[in-house]
């Protein structure tokens, strides 16, 4: 595989469990050395795509080549080229961090001296030296994730799959992990990652594919996708119905939530746009103001015409029902 050959080529990928269609004809191409993000809510099929590409699941149909090899006919060659870090930590909790890495070095068939070096290098690089001889069971979430990734990267795969790599991590661990991914990319490694966060895809990926109900509904750079999204919105909360009604009349594209006394005005995030909203408002009538930039919800809305199936708890009450917010 040279840098110019596609690292991943998928066409017509389908997978169902009984009557339930998980992937409904997915096509995607990832050039060597690129970072591709699969963006989508829970249940969109992201993990299924990763598992099929990583030879952990057999597809029902489709042409799938990873690192130049057919996943069904040459699974061993595919496995030799890839590294996978899934959503659930793939570490041995009864072993120490150093022992976990040693296990990977041995399974990569490194000779003794090289294995020892590789373990030392990875411990240092992933900031695990202090906890190297502690059982992985006692690690924090961030340490577990770093060890997990170190195990994936020890054998220096040319292509890595990261399935929701930052799920459940605190903001600092998340940024650490992004730095590690960028480092890999600068070494020429191809990355396919899945995420629920537009920001993460935006930060890391060259190209983003939006997966919804087993179909790739949009594909492009972060900038291209954002252009297709009407942007964020300005939420204005009023003291009384009178103020709300007046403002609603001035902004026909806005969504009114009478119970919460809130008006949501679509906004491109520009100062001019914000000023237009503010100009019509009466100082005394306004209880609060929030400016939100485009998020996964907005991307989904724009691309699929309905709200992303983000778990209810993650959707601020004022945004529901989201589908009414976008002008036709």
């Amino acid at each position: 595989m040279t840098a110019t050959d596609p690292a991943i080529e998928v066409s017509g990928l389908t997978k169902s469990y009984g009557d339930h269609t998980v992937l409904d004809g997915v096509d995607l191409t990832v050039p060597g050395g690129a970072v591709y993000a699969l963006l989508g809510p829970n249940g969109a099929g992201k993990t299924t795509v990763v598992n099929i590409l990583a030879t952990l699941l057999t597809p029902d149909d489709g042409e799938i080549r990873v690192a130049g090899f057919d996943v069904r006919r040459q699974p061993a060659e595919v496995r030799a080229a890839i590294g996978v870090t899934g959503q659930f930590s793939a570490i041995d909790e009864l072993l120490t961090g150093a022992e976990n890495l040693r296990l990977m070095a041995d399974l990569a068939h490194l000779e003794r001296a090289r294995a020892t070096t590789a373990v030392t290098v990875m411990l240092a690089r992933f900031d695990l030296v202090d906890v190297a001889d502690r059982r992985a069971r006692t690690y924090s979430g961030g340490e577990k994730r770093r060890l997990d990734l170190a195990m994936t990267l020890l054998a220096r795969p040319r292509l890595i799959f990261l399935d929701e790599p930052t799920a459940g991590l605190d903001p600092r661990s998340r940024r650490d992990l992004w730095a590690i991914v960028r480092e890999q990319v600068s070494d020429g490694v191809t990355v396919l990652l899945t995420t629920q966060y537009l920001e993460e895809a935006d930060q890391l990926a060259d190209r983003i594919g939006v997966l919804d109900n087993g179909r790739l509904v949009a594909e492009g750079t972060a900038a291209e996708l954002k252009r297709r999204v009407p942007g964020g919105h300005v939420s204005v909360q009023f003291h009384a119905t009178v103020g709300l009604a007046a403002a609603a009349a001035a902004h026909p594209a806005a969504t009114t939530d009478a119970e919460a006394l809130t008006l949501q005005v679509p906004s491109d995030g520009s100062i001019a746009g914000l000023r237009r909203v503010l100009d019509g408002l009466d100082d005394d009538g306004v209880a609060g103001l929030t400016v939100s930039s485009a998020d996964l919800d907005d991307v989904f809305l724009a691309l699929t015409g309905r709200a992303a199936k983000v778990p209810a708890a993650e959707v601020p009450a004022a945004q529901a029902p989201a589908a009414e917010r976008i002008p036709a």
Partner: protein
Amino acid sequence: MSASYTARDSATMLRRNLLHIRRYPSLSIILVAQPIVFLLVFVYVFGGTLGAGLPGQDGGAGRGDYLVFITPGILFMTVASVALGTAISTATDMTTGIIARFRAMNIARVSVLTGHVLGAVIRTGFAVVVVTAFAFLLGFRSDAGPLRWLGAIGLLILIAFSLTWLTVGLGLAADSVETASNTPLFLMILPFVSSAFVPTDAMPAGLRQFAQHQPFTPMIDTLRALVTGAPTGSELWFSIGWCVAIALLGYLWSRRLFLRVPAK
């Protein structure tokens, strides 16, 4: 995947399982305690009466003779007990995320299972040594020479190997760790319907036929002949035959269960 990689990966996985065994000693202790409790109960609670009923005793010595009679059966129970533990540890291992990592790696995949089996055989070795020492402590004596003891050890390893391949399969087939701790219980029950605790001649007709022809009886009879210095006869070949058959079936079954692409 070349044969040398298969051997190397199996050795790596064995090291992993030995670390697990060392890090989780309570399971080993329970597995060894089980046959020791059986030994104590059978010798001191039932031994006086059962010993008197042994053929050729005429109500004589009793307990000491019974200890000699059941020690080979208890050694078999030790092997079965550790094998049962392997079903639990295999099932537990399958619930951990690292198995998915192994599946996505270019390694001899069956080495994950081989590691469990070889680790279990080593654990059985320790357990057998402890239980044998305990039997000697209680007064077990044997006229068998070193060659016969070597034979007994060899047979115990073979039994451990075959029962473990079976319980690895049971561990893989179980939908939960709880199930995996229940399905292999027959390994602990079947010895009661064999020649382990009483001679099969003392059983009623139907049961006797079953006891005489079930696979564990020739194994226990051969062990008894080896450690007491009696001739082994054809039982030895039956034992080896059963072991090879169980090991082969267990291996093929486990391998199929493990290599099968998960449904979800």
